[in-house]
Each structure stands twice: as structure tokens, then as C-alpha cells.
């Protein structure tokens, strides 16, 4: 077997850990949407639905 064939075999060999990770993925890191996207949702939904409410404002310090 040529060395490049070895490399290809290594690259294509499926690892069970890869399959497990794909079948049982951890929850992705959350990135809360910004106000521009809230506005986009409002435009799509037309108003009135619970999803439209923007993130709860946090109390200002001082």
C-alpha cells in the first residue's frame, strides 16, 4: 500500500466517537438574538405572539 493510500484510509476510517457525537450531540452554546432579529420576527409574525416579545430588560445599575 502506498503511503498516500494509508493517509486516505486513516482519513476515511470512521471513528465510533464521531458517530456517537453526531447521534448524541450536546446542546450548542446559546447566543441570544439581538433587537434587529426581534424586529425581523415581528415582521414575519405580524404581532401578538409570545415569540415576539424582546428579551426581558435587565435593571440598570445605579
Amino acid at each position, binding site marked *: 500500500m502506498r503511503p498516500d493510500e494509508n493517509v486516505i484510509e486513516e482519513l476515511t*476510517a470512521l471513528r*465510533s466517537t464521531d458517530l456517537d457525537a453526531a447521534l448524541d450531540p450536546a446542546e450548542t452554546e446559546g447566543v441570544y438574538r439581538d433587537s434587529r432579529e426581534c424586529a425581523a420576527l415581528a415582521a414575519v409574525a405580524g404581532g401578538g405572539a409570545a415569540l415576539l416579545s424582546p428579551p426581558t430588560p435587565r435593571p440598570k445599575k445605579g
Partner: protein
Amino acid sequence: MEQSGTSTRLQAAVQDLASGVVSVLRDGDHTRAVLPAGTAEAGDLALAAVRVLGADAVLPGLLSGATSDPAEVAVFRKAVEAYPPRSDAAPTVRWSHWGMARALRRLDPNSSSGPPDEPDTRWLDDASWQTLTHQLAVLAPLALPGESCAVSRLAARRPVDVARGFVRAVRRRDWRQAAGAGRWLTLLPGVPDTLGLESGLDFVELMGGQDPMVTLQVRAARLTRTGTLV
């Protein structure tokens, strides 16, 4: 965390396969094969991609009830047989494999294998609404109209929790989770009207639609919701 080369290749193969399913769901041409033409042509990576996509790899056939291409069924069967869950497998791995076995029986009624035993749902008994939604989204291929299992019965008892999880997923911009939860919500009784599910699904598709895994779930949800099967 850094991904391995095979992990990246597997993800790409899964995305390709999901794109094929979306294309068939969009066109309604359920006679078109999604899976590789035959077991001989289906390499390890392609089979693994079928295993990862689970029962959704044959979703057009499951929704339409049309006779499936025997070559496609053979590939699906090979993926089921090639990747059985290990004894220490996570519940989602067991359930996704169970879902594939169920789908295989639907596609091939002459299959000699009997109905698979359902894994248990103990890991979800005391799950928070956040965990429940995440796990249900991972198991979205089990959300099929007219099909009941322990996971779907458990979800049916917690529609408000799943609705809350859907909103959380949208707000976190986790479009895959939102799409999977949205698909479940189209099947569950008692979902609050105030959720705005239809608008929410539109938004999820708008924002996450470049990912075929998201589009697949949204399309499945819409087909389930409207009762318009492929």
C-alpha cells in the same frame, strides 16, 4: 473543541443527505431515490450518514406511504444493521436506532424481523423543560403522524414545556433545536395558541434555513401540520 477530519466529513455527508431529503419533500417526487443507489456503492461514510440522519433518511417514503425503492430500502437496512447501539449507548442513540428499525418495518412489511422492543424513557422522567426539549429535538425523526412510542407519549404529557423550550431555542438562535421542537409541537395536543408556532417556524426557516438539517425539520413540521403528505 477541535473536530476530527472524519467528523467533518461525516457532518458534510449528513448535510448532503439531508439536502436530498429536503429536495424530495419540496418537489413531492417520492419516487426519486435519496439514498445511494445500492449497498455496493454505499461506502462507510454514506452508511454512517444514513445512521446519523436516522429514520428521516427515508422520511418521504414514511410520509407518503408509497412503495419504496427496494435498493433504497436495502441501503437503509444495511445502515440499521451496521450500526447497532452499543450496550453503553446513550438513550438518544438507542431511540434513534429504534426509530430506524420501526421505519424499516414500515417500508418493508415483509421484513422477517419482529417489532423492535422500545428502549425506556427513564432518563426523561425528571428532565427539566430545557433538557426535555433538547433531547426531543435530537429525536425529531420519531415525530411522525400516526406513530406512537414512549417518547411521543411522554412529549404529549408536556406540551407547555416543549413550547417553552421552542421559544428558548429561538431566543438562543439554536435553529436545529427550534426546528426539531417545532416539529414535535405540530403533533402534540394542548400547545398554547399564544405560542405562534406557525410564525415561529417561518422565522426559524428564515434564520436557519441555510442549514438543510433545519429545513428538513421545518418542512416535516409543515407537512405534518397541513396534513399534506408528500
